[in-house]
């Protein structure tokens, strides 16, 4: 009956606040959200919650709120680890929590945060609560409800077939070596630097490889959704080749499809897709545009040199994700909310 909370204090604050009218998610608000999640977890019967340490101190602030008469009946504990204030923290914390017997990981962050957590989570399911900017993987959900659903998963009260979704992922190989993964999309950019990480200039995109994409998604997945929607559960992916930003100068190549999509909060752009192909599980596609920078789940992350050979593979082994609606419905069906 153990759950874990991994909250990213850095989410919801990048340059998209300026270039894309994105939501500001300050840490005080995340602390409130965490308190609501804890109350949900407790109500669902979770007995222990582990916290990842972070530079803002979500654990200490959660404790602060539940002192004296408001004390939680469950135990909340801080993971003994050194906080480096970078991505590695989340991966390491997830792995440690798995070792400690955590049965559900509640994450606060964006798709990027979950990508990193999933590297350490193994087969432990994730309840991804969105505090990021444009998210496909993590969901906008009220914390209390997320806490309840995660708690029902952690305690095993709701069966896996009702509560969990098995997702896909992409593995990025450089010169044959797996270097990183993406849960939703890997975007090849005609860039040289990671810089501010986010993507807002569509003119730099050369290729998009995605595990899913729906027209109601926000971000790069919206391009996929507008062109050929793919559900998170479907056993396929997609590979899109994008015209270079200078395409307009060459009308001869105007055979491309102009796709209008909400590529970011407040950013509806027309993206020229030259061609696309569906991918089956296990299929690898080659990145032809090198040198480049690859953004994974919306963050520029991987720098590819001019002589590197890059491949991207679609696989089934993405993280298990809590389906909030289905979990709670099943719990109701089972009468778990009724006292007799």
């Amino acid at each position, binding site marked *: 009956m153990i759950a874990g909370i991994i909250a990213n204090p850095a989410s919801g*604050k990048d340059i998209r606040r*300026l270039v894309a009218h994105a939501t*500001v998610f*300050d*840490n005080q608000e995340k602390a409130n959200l965490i308190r609501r999640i804890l109350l949900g977890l407790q109500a669902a019967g979770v007995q222990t919650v582990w916290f990842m340490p972070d530079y803002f101190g979500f654990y200490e602030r959660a404790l602060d709120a539940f002192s004296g008469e408001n004390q939680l009946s469950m135990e909340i504990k801080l993971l003994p680890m050194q906080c480096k204030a970078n991505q590695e923290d989340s991966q390491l914390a997830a792995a440690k929590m798995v070792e400690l017997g955590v049965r559900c990981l509640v994450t606060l962050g964006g798709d990027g945060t979950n990508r990193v957590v999933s590297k350490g989570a193994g087969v432990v399911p994730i309840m991804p609560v969105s505090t990021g900017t444009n998210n496909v993987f993590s969901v906008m959900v009220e914390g209390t409800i997320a806490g309840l659903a995660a708690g029902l998963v952690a305690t095993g009260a709701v069966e896996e077939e009702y509560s969990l979704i098995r997702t896909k992922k992409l593995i990025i190989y450089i010169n044959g070596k797996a270097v990183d993964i993406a849960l939703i999309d890997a975007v090849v950019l005609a*860039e040289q*630097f*990671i810089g*501010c990480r986010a993507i807002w200039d569509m003119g730099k995109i050369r290729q998009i490889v995605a595990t899913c994409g729906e027209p109601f998604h926000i971000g790069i997945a919206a391009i996929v959704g507008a062109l050929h929607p793919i559900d998170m559960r479907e056993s396929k992916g997609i590979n899109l080749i994008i015209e270079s930003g200078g395409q307009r100068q060459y009308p001869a190549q105007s055979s491309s499809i102009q796709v209008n999509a909400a590529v970011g909060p407040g950013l509806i752009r027309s993206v020229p897709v030259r061609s696309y192909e569906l991918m089956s599980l296990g299929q690898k596609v080659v990145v032809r545009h090198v040198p480049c920078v690859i953004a994974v789940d919306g963050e520029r992350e991987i720098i590819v040199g001019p002589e590197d050979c890059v491949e991207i593979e679609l696989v089934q082994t993405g993280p298990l994700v809590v389906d909030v609606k289905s979990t709670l419905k099943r719990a109701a069906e089972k009468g778990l909310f009724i006292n007799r």
Partner: protein
Amino acid sequence: MALNKVQMLELYRKMRTIREFEETVAKFFSQGQIPGFVHLYTGEEAVATGVCANLEKQDYIASTHRGHGHGIARGASLNKMMAEIFGRIDGECKGKGGSMHIADVELGFLGANGIVGAGLPLATGAGFAAKYMKTNGVAICFFGDAASNRGTFHESLNMASIQKLPVVFVNENNMYGISMSQERHQNISDIADRAGSYGMPGMVVDGNDVMAVYEAAEEAVKSARAGGGPVLIECKTYRHHGHFEGDACIYRCDEEVNAWKAKDPLPRFANRLQEMKMATEAEIDQIDAEVKKVIADAVEFAQNSPVPTLDELTKDVYCD
């Protein structure tokens, strides 16, 4: 806009120049050749460099007590800056300002400042002037994490916001206000969170990555110049030296210092340039050698410059 090789190498050269300048000042300070207080910018070079690379002639910057880097990034004369720090007549301020008051108003460099947080309203005023005179200029305000607790911060952001001034507030969060760590001096971790209170966008960037700072500042400056109002950029960074030269730094541990030194913006950018085949090791080494020479020349210039004559004591109190 993507930068070309020449521009990238220029960014590196600027950062290297600041580093070399600061380490040289440290050396002469420890030898007792430089009087007073000096606060060094070593470790934070990417911030000033990345921001100032976006500026034009009509723009202004307001600086802090840790201001050498800002002046160099804005293009102030190394000779005059060094002479100023040595307290010589050929200094930027005739030796009457010193390290904490280096300025070059003609360059739009409104000066280092001995008062924490004092630059905020000054930049707000310079931004006002740019808007009032329709110069299409912007004003940049560099300020530290501890300055964000001062009233000047709150009043300036509020005023800049209601007047929609072209000001970019660049917070250099080096995690300490003198000896007091950020977690002890404020109950938030991201100063960018405060932007929303003043109705302006705020963002956090990696202040040790010159390209991240460059990109963020590029968008912020573009927006401010176009009349979009002020923006707050928080750059997470770290000072390698103490608050001032001679600071024993009992308030921070080696582990922390070393972790940040591992993120040193200079080797990080140099390595990146090499990986991207934008520069060879030899080219980097050549820049380093050229910079060494330029700074050595600046020291020579400073040392050869006379101290101010005593009649300077009461000169320049008022202008005629």
